[in-house]
């Protein structure tokens, strides 16, 4: 079993904060099939369409029949640990700092043998559950965990390098005025966060559910308006150095596309809140988060955006809003790359219409704010990069992959 991690003590101000380092980054283009799988929390391997055999690592041709028809498909993740070893003095800086480090060979039930990082509770000859995880350089690596839950499983030292578990971490939820922000704050606190700072813009304006947040142990309301450059700078000056997980719950939903709207003032508000707010947030909090990527048990680990799935495919009924979300999605890829040297994960949580007032006339299925909050926690624990919450989001993901043009036509109604 794993020893539970202990609540981090206050930092010793005489010690320098360790800078983040990264594990090796080079991958072949084909190997990014695993990156995609890891980003979404799926276990995928290449399988030969000619002979049906699974293969690993990524190849250009099937080692069994030499066919080039290798495609990434979801694969059964069960295997058995054949052998394990512990690297005590690795030459790579990242692993040297984290040594001893266990790796092993896992014989997969579906065929291939994989070299893998190991959870401490994996024993030779025993079944394991294999997954692809994104490491601190953002690349997919194989990680074997015990097949069944073990005590304090998520506290494993090597696993915690792959995940962004809220336990003992300090979280900043940027917008607590929305139901999503409120639920996210409560869910992250319940998931073991040390403290959840919750941004409240325009505190003079009452909002629904305020009493649920106020006075809650471990939840701290802070004056914060992402669209206000000074506000973001001021708050980062106060708490920037202790934000380990940032959850961007900016929400500015207005119906309408182009022709049935008049002028640009609503679009400007959408951009102001969602896009410029994102820039303000990133510039204020990003640099210090990136610098604190190796800062102990409660190092900074993740940035989360809640985005409309219509960032991926415009929904004309909410067309201008979709465009503002697409802009944020693009920006998120920039931020992901810029946070990379710190080992900070950037997770986008895509949702369909949420069960809130602005989607009142939209028929179900709609996503409950609590489901989004739970997805955020699950995604952080799993170390994911992309999540699709609810039926609409999942359907759009699949239809976009199948035929984007068909999706465009079908959203136009």
């Amino acid at each position, binding site marked *: 079993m794993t020893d539970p991690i202990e609540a981090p003590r206050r930092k010793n101000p005489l010690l320098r904060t360790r800078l983040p380092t990264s594990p090796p980054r080079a991958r072949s283009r084909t190997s990014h099939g695993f990156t995609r799988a890891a980003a979404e929390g799926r276990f995928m391997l290449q399988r030969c369409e000619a002979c049906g055999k699974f293969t690993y690592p990524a190849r250009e041709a099937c080692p069994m029949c030499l066919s080039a028809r290798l495609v990434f498909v979801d694969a059964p993740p069960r295997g058995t640990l054949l052998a394990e070893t512990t690297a005590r003095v690795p030459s790579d800086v990242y692993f040297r700092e984290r040594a001893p480090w266990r790796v092993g060979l896992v014989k997969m039930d579906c065929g291939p043998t994989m070299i893998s990082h190991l959870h401490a509770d994996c024993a030779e000859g025993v079944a394991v559950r294999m997954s692809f995880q994104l490491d601190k350089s953002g690349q997919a690596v194989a990680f074997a965990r015990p097949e069944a839950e073990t005590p304090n499983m998520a506290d494993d030292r090597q696993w915690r390098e792959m995940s962004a578990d809220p336990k003992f971490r300090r979280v900043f939820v940027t917008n607590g005025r929305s139901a999503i922000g409120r639920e996210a704050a409560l869910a992250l606190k319940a998931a073991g966060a040390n403290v959840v700072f919750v941004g409240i813009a*325009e*505190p*003079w*304006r*009452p909002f629904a559910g305020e009493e649920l947040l106020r006075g809650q142990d471990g939840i701290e309301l802070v*004056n914060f*308006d992402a*669209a*206000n*450059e*000074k*506000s973001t700078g001021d708050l980062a000056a106060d708490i920037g150095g202790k934000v380990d997980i940032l959850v961007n719950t900016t929400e500015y939903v207005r119906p309408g596309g182009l022709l049935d709207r008049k002028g640009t*003032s*609503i679009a*400007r*508000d959408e951009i*102001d809140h969602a896009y410029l707010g994102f820039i303000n947030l990133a510039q204020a909090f990003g640099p210090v988060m990136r610098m604190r990527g190796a800062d102990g048990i409660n190092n900074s680990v993740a940035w989360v955006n809640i985005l409309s799935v219509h960032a991926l495919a415009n929904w004309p009924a909410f067309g201008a809003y979709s465009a503002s979300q697409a802009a944020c999605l693009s920006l998120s890829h920039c931020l992901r790359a810029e946070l990379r040297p710190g080992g900070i994960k950037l997770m986008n949580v895509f949702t369909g219409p949420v069960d809130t007032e602005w989607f009142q006339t939209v028929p179900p299925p709609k996503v409950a704010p609590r489901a989004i909050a739970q997805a955020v926690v699950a995604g952080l624990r799993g170390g994911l990069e992309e999540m699709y919450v609810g039926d609409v989001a999942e359907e759009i993901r699949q239809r976009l992959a199948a035929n984007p043009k068909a999706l465009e036509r079908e959203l136009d109604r």
Partner: protein
Amino acid sequence: MHSKTLLDLAGAIASGAVRVIDLSFTLSPDFPVIVLPPEFGQAAPVRIQEISRYDARGPAWYWNNVTFGEHTGTHFDAPIHWFTGKDLANNAVDTMPAKDMIAPACVIDCSAQAAQDPDFVLTVPIVEAWEARHGRIPSRHWVLLRTDWSKKGWRDYSNLRDDGAHTPGPNAAVMKWLVEERGIIGFGTETIGTDAGQAGHFEPPYPAHHFLHGAGRYGLQCLCNLDQLPPIGAIVVASPLKIQNGSGSPLRVIALVSSA
């Protein structure tokens, strides 16, 4: 008028014999704005974006880009702001007569009543009682309603509840009377808006806007330091930005007060 009078005024300002009182709030992103139902267009709050601050973006200078709605912070309402004033001549901030930007003020202190009742409304009898002490309100004077509302924290200042804002203001009768019987040049308040928070339920709705602007008069709101003004004798200088066809603008409102 003899030019010496103006020089005397300048001298009096320099010597402190005439005090200059700033009636304006700082134009800041934190200042509450009027809240309309969300399906309506909204007043943009103040945004201040740094262009450079003695840094790589401009090594020797500091400056900002600033954006805001016309009705943000301490601001001026021109007649064109309301439907009743839409067809008047020279009804926008760029075309209004410059001489209207300087006028004397009568200050009616209702701070005690407003402290008791956030929905306090100014009525004709209250103004008549004020006139009994200070004399008839002369024409082309501002009437400024002192409530000490400007001294509140922002939440109490907006005082939004589930049935709307609860802040003091004038009733319909007194606005019609001030405009038609007293010929005031405008009406000023410390609250967000010349009208009471619940004035949407008055008849007509928003009577200060309705009657003032319908008659080509002006509004000032989000004023502060009214407690430093005498009931009569202060001169208000209120010159809005010259925004093309503007319905109003944030501005620096100052008052000249004789300290003698």
